């Protein structure tokens, strides 16, 4: 699941603005921030998120909310810390990052279970259709159904969903992208366009098994690539296996890692121990 962390970091980083110090003058409320009162970080952070005038506000909002989570946990106020995680879900764009934040919120405050389950149920409804499209994309690419496969893959939401599935399945995203792009290229070069048989020009009416396929259609160039694509299709399709051996052979035996506040701080690249806002920057002492 190490790959999962990279994936999460990438997904969060792609949706988060850099933690640039707000150039606007420090609000008097910002000057009041202190670790003894993490609720203030939470409240200000939520207000900042509501203000969509300047993109930099988002950075400040994130800074505040991550600190709210960090310091609330330090002070044993897990309810506030949990609220901070939930507030952050409004910012992140990737579904997986949102899931991760909700997991952390639940871990910090188990009383949020009903909300967590409601979120999951909503997510299932929303992503089901996207899962179908993403699965169709992988299928089309593997069976050289061009231009369909390439067109689907070029859609940002489909691509994002495929990559999320890869992260969820512990699959290296870069490897997956490489294989998909290779298969698309092979599909473009495949003169039979994904058909089993082509016309024999030397003998009208006769059909030939397409000689361009060194392996069977839909079987990729090698077993590793096939494993990669099938594994991702399994995640999208919700396929389950019972056998441990089969699961291990499909690399479905990665470690399960629990979310932690320390990971949140690292993933959002916030120096949370610098708790005080002075002269438009975050400092460690007041």
């Amino acid at each position, binding site marked *: 699941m*190490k790959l999962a962390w990279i994936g999460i970091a990438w997904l969060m980083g792609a949706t988060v603005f850099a933690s640039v110090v707000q150039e606007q003058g420090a609000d008097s409320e910002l000057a009041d921030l202190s670790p003894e009162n993490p609720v203030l970080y939470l409240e200000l952070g939520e207000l900042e998120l509501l203000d969509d005038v300047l993109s930099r506000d988002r950075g400040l909002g994130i800074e505040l909310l991550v600190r709210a989570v960090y310091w609330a946990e330090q002070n044993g106020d897990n309810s506030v810390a949990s609220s901070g995680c939930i507030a952050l879900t409004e910012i992140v764009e990737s579904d997986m990052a949102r899931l991760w934040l909700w997991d952390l919120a639940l871990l910090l405050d188990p009383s949020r279970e009903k909300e967590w389950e409601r979120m999951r149920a909503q997510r299932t409804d929303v992503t089901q259709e996207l899962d179908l499209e993403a699965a169709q994309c992988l299928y089309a690419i593997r069976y050289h159904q061009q231009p369909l496969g390439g067109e689907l893959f070029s859609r940002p939401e489909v691509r994002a969903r495929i990559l999320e599935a890869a992260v969820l399945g512990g699959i290296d995203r870069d490897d997956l992208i490489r294989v998909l792009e290779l298969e698309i290229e092979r599909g473009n070069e495949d003169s039979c366009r994904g058909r*089993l048989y082509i016309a024999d020009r030397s003998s009208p009416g006769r059909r030939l098994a397409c000689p361009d396929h060194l392996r069977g259609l839909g079987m990729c160039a090698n077993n590793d690539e096939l494993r990669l694509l099938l594994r991702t299709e399994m995640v999208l*399709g919700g396929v389950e296996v019972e056998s441990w051996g089969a699961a291990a052979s*499909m690399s479905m035996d990665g470690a*399960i*890692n629990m979310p932690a506040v320390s990971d949140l701080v690292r993933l959002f690249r916030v120096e949370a121990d610098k708790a005080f806002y002075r002269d438009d920057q975050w400092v460690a002492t007041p």
Partner: protein
Amino acid sequence: MDSQSDRDVAEFLGSDAAIGGPFAVLGLKYAPIDQAMILRACQLRLGRISEHRRSQTPAADEVRLAVHAAASQLLDPELREELAKHWPEGSGEISLVGESPKAWRVEPTSRLDERLKQQALTLLGACGGWNTRSRKRLGQFARMNQISAAQLVAGIIGEQSDDGKQGETRDGGGNQVVRGPSLIDPAAGSLPWAMIPVVYVMMGLLLISVGYMKSSEVDGRADGGVAAIKDLDGGSEIGSRFPSSETRGGEKLVVSERRHYSAILFELEKANSVGVSEIEAGRAFSEIGERLGEQWTEFTVEELDRAVVAVDGVLGGILNPEVFDAAGSFLSLDDPDRPGSVFRLAVRSLLFGTRIDGGGVVEYSVMSRRAGVRSGEGAFDQYLLTEFVRLAKLSSDDPAWWAWWIGQLRPMADRVEGFDESRIFEAAYWRLTNGRIGDGWTECTKQIVQELEWREGSAARSWMMGLVVDPKVRSDRLAILTQAMVVHSSAKGLEVGMVVGKDDSMAEREAYLGKLRQRWATDRGASDGVRGQLVERIELLMRMTQSPTRPSQALSRGVELARVNSACLAYQRNDEASVIGMIQLFDTPMNSGQVSGKALDLSSSAGDELWATKARNLDDADELFAHLRAMDQFDVVGPKSAHALVYLAMQAPNLQVRAGAERAMMVRRDEVAILIALDRIAGAKRTTRRMAELIHGYIEFDGDLGDAAASRRALLERLVLAGMLDGGSSTGIVDGYWRSMEESYRLRTRSGGDEGAKGYFNEQVLGLMTDGGEVPGQTRAGLLIRLRQARGPIQEFVAYQAAALELLATDVASRHPGLGARVDRVMNENSDKMKQTVDAVVQIMLNERAMAELWMLVLESEGVS
């Protein structure tokens, strides 16, 4: 409405109540208004809060406080007048008009004059003082004379003195006593909270207009009644303090002789039924109360509840402060740091909401009418336990405190579950982890160790071993404790000088732990071979898995650890036969699992392409049948041939050829190339019933033929199961590992099911719920999160296994209070290691290792090693 409290008031009482000020809170106009209306309004508001769906929330309590505060302010006429200048009046929704009998309608001027007062007093005396009969008679009297009962009562009791002594507690050392609740005080305007419910009870009784009266009762107890009247006429001082337990108004209290507890209970309940209205009766009641305080341990839990309910009833029904002081004197407290009796402290706390903390400051808290002690449920014993737990945190280095504390603890041990040495452990732990050592700590440790049992398998031994390696315990305090243990306790096998040094490091303390284990192991370890074997096995596996483990090693280590854990569980269940059987299998190799032995090759040979081409171009059925038979020469169907075979099964012109192709497929089940060929048609834009039947038939899937998504899912699953993606050897090993783990977990469950870690976890939950417990929120949350992440059976196993580990840790810590810190250490270390690995099989091994460590703690605490 700009504050949370305003919003709360609006929620519970309506927006009109939240406009500000006490009048609005109670819903009262400026006029007409009197004491009865205010009290009635207060009662109605409280009732409304209680009926609200959020009546049990802290917000509801805040609103209740606001209602009480408003009533208190308005009861003071002068203050009321001043408040009317600054705050708006209420909606007037609270009104007595139409809500109560005509007798209670408030008149602007009171009709209660001296003549009526004297008549009421005569009536009171004729009935023998304050009792049920007199209350009914007075109710009638008030109704007949068109005055409010509250006015009548207040008039009978008399004008209050204004010497400012009410509501005070005496500061300073010596006998700091706490005054109980005082009476209604119209002059000062403050109604002590504790008496509000008493007033309601009084008003309720007076409202009962029952018309019967017995002529014989008129002549009853004239003397007592006259004495009471004289006292009342004399205008007794309000706000008298409780005298000390030894004196009562300057007279030494005579404690009556010991009596049978049933007699004490009878007297208490009798007093509750007739009421206490005279000072002498109060003194007599207090004597009975003294007996209760001395002999309470003799009562059963249900009877103690009844006794406390009776005390509550008697004291709650007394309006006269002198009578109250007399009746409640047995509850006085001599020393706030060392209350004479935790029992008295608990009763006072329950009845009056008073509390004494270690600093000697008396805290007089607001008391809303509590649910009280429900007879028959042992609720008061649990309340006592709560007080003990609270007092444990007040432990000090004062030997006198410890002597008192232990003395209070002893009688509780036999009657309340959970009231055992663990209370001493808790109290001592507060000291051991605390700062500068007081002068008396040495003597304290002597008392502590002498109170504990140090025999084989005792909790004290495991507690001590836990303290030695607990980093929070200070070495200097621990040194004195171990010294006391060696010199003064009944612990055997310890020689003089075998103590912790005051500056010892953790490494040195670990060494000391080893000595302790060695000294105490010889008692029983040698005589218990089974336990010894378990301990030895665990120690070996701990050493073998101390460093980071590779996944390949984790498989076998995980199985070995799982086996010893299952054996430990069987040992705890006293299933010695199973344990011995399991021990014999400790060194059995892990199940090797089946190896498919076939390497997957999806490359297309010349023969493959040829067969596929020919299959497409043959028209004659006989030729096609022959061609199908020619496929037998191939060990495995080639990738292109597989596609061709599926093509024939779907689209051959001749139906019999289609059937023949289908038969050729079916005799080659689970061939990867055929599965992929079927997958190709499963994902087609247009699927037919024929396609679905072919796929379902090949993979033996019973799903809905119309559900293409389900068909495809099943196909993918079969593809994985076919072991297509590697040579099969590692798949077999992992399958063997799976079966070994399943076997170990089957032995842990009483049902012997095959659900692995899930089944074990579910049984733990069932056991927990049977004992009235529930799964901790954190454990449940962790399980949900892990299950959400899980993408296969191995990860799902880790999820349930981790939850089972957490439940085991909780169980061990609760059954062995002295092991709490060590259990935490095991779990924290496991949590750190789990984060450092990328393999689920290593995580499985780590969880099993943590379980084994916990079992080791349990075995140690039972005096083995």
